[in-house]
């Protein structure tokens, strides 16, 4: 059995994936991020999309400490060329149909990927501490292990707690 998803290239040469229906929209232009003062660095602000305030998470920065040294981890979003994508996830606290929106920062446009059951593998050791942020992990032919993001956990948890374990 196989499923399709989106392969996300984050800063720090990190790669993650989300389900095919979880990536709603990729912003065609450089995102205008409205900084929220005193927000945690991995969640620096919000973007306005379709008259909605959508929180932005820089997963590369959030989890970068768990990966090999990356030359662009410390670069501010304003200084780096990036792409933002709107993702949707379900939440118990959301209104109506339970769908919430968030935004993720990518280094390049996401690519579609098809994954079969026999590609499943364990999370890399360096991400075990963050297991709650992932639903699964698969082996990519070229990239190695690619964790699949648990968007509800990512956007519903206070970043302060995440940063402590990062």
């Amino acid at each position, binding site marked *: 059995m196989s499923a399709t998803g989106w392969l996300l290239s984050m800063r720090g040469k990190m790669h993650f994936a989300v389900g095919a*229906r979880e*990536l*709603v*929209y990729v912003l065609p232009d450089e995102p*205008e991020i*409205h*900084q*929220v*003062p*005193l*927000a*945690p660095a991995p*969640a620096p*602000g*919000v973007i*306005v999309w*379709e*008259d*909605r*305030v*959508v*929180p932005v*998470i820089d997963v590369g920065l959030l989890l970068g400490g768990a990966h090999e040294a990356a030359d662009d981890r410390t670069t501010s979003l304003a200084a780096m060329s990036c792409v933002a994508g*709107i993702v*949707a996830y379900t939440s118990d606290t*959301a*209104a*109506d*149909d339970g*769908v*919430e*929106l*968030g935004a993720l920062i990518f280094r390049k446009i996401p690519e579609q990927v098809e994954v079969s059951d026999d590609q499943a593998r364990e999370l890399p050791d360096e991400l075990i501490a963050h297991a709650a942020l992932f639903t699964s992990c698969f082996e990519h032919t070229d990239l190695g292990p690619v964790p699949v993001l648990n968007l509800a956990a*990512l*956007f*519903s*948890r*206070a*970043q*302060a707690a995440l940063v402590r374990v990062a």
Partner: protein
Amino acid sequence: MRACQNAAPIRQAAQLASLCVGRLTLAVPLRDLQSLEPVLDVDTQNCGGASAGTIDLRTGRCPVYCVDESLAILKDPRPEHRICAILDGGDAGPFGLICGAVEALEGDGLASVGVPPCMRTPDSPLEGLTLHGRRVLCRRTGAAWARFMSAGALEPAGVERSERSHMLTELDPGMDEDCV
């Protein structure tokens, strides 16, 4: 990709006053804005604690605060900061906040949300965000800003957040209703 029918619930906000500090826009309920005074009237020789000075009002003297875009205290107002907005600080009494521009915003054009869960930290002074056109305002009551300015945002820019977080107020979800 698919269309999304809803996202975070957006509620209409009451009338607000927006206070521009560089690219950051703070917001308070319009009823908390008492008056606007020129920065030239601020006595910067008389600054104590976190304040950048004081200003004399008909009701007495009150502290004046000045912050940067990251809400760190500034002791010296920047040239673009020309207005001292006098706000109702609740139990703390009135206080001044130096800013670049002040605007009254009608409730019809405003939509508010709470601070997204992933952005909540114990030291955040915000109760929510309000969307006005393409602008995002950082919202809290005058009383809450007064507490933050006087008790928390004491250190000049550059002080690590963790060093000052113990001094700051906890996020108070109950405050959110003040502006809705």
